[in-house]
């Protein structure tokens, strides 16, 4: 399931949805937050811009790819857009499977792929001014490692 939304989400509610079958033995979650990472140059807020027509389509493709690679029973990606503040949730990836490894691997794959393949761009509003977040080499490498 894919949700692209401005408002916050409730992890407990998604946990219930992911565990709706009795053959599910494990659930894995990743929740990404807005981080104020610098004492010297405080990040006051972050605005996430996206390409609405393309976003859901790309997230669906990424979710389908995970379903073909691992035996997952349920999966969910929630990605927020708009203005967020340090501590706010940005993204949730959740997967459920019979055994833990499938859920954990698929969850890690989903977040790695969507970092560089989902059409979002982050504008950090810092003490020193606004700055668009640049592509992280580590994120590009993480995608390559999945083959």
């Amino acid at each position: 399931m894919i949700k692209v939304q401005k408002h916050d989400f409730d992890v407990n509610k998604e946990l219930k949805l992911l565990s709706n079958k009795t053959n599910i033995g494990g659930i894995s979650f990743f929740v990404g937050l807005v981080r104020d990472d610098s004492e010297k140059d405080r990040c006051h807020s972050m605005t996430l811009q996206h390409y609405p027509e393309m976003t859901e389509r790309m997230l669906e493709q990424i979710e389908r790819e995970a379903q073909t690679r691992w035996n997952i029973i349920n999966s969910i990606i929630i990605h927020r857009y708009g203005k967020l503040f340090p501590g706010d949730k940005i993204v949730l990836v959740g997967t459920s499977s019979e055994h833990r490894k499938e859920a954990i691997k698929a969850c890690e794959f989903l977040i790695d792929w969507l970092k560089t393949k989902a059409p979002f761009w982050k504008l950090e509003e810092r003490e020193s001014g606004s700055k668009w977040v640049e592509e992280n080499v580590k994120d590009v490498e993480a995608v390559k490692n999945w083959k």
Partner: protein
Amino acid sequence: MNIKYFSWLRDRIGIEEDDIELELESISVKELIDLLAKKSDRHFEALKDTSIIRCAVNLEVVNFDHKISKNDEVALFPPMTGG
């Protein structure tokens, strides 16, 4: 042809979308960027480093040699930073 811009490309060019008349039936992404760069100084400055520009045609990311047709939906943007 309509071209959408996102992120700092939108800020630097100063508009969300562009419209250009295509003389040919199709054009490569690289040729389109070269054409757009001639529109103004702001276009030129924003589009000069193509190593940090990506293109989506009909909602799929494509290479710079991809041929675009007149009715395709085109978007230019920097590398994506989701998650």
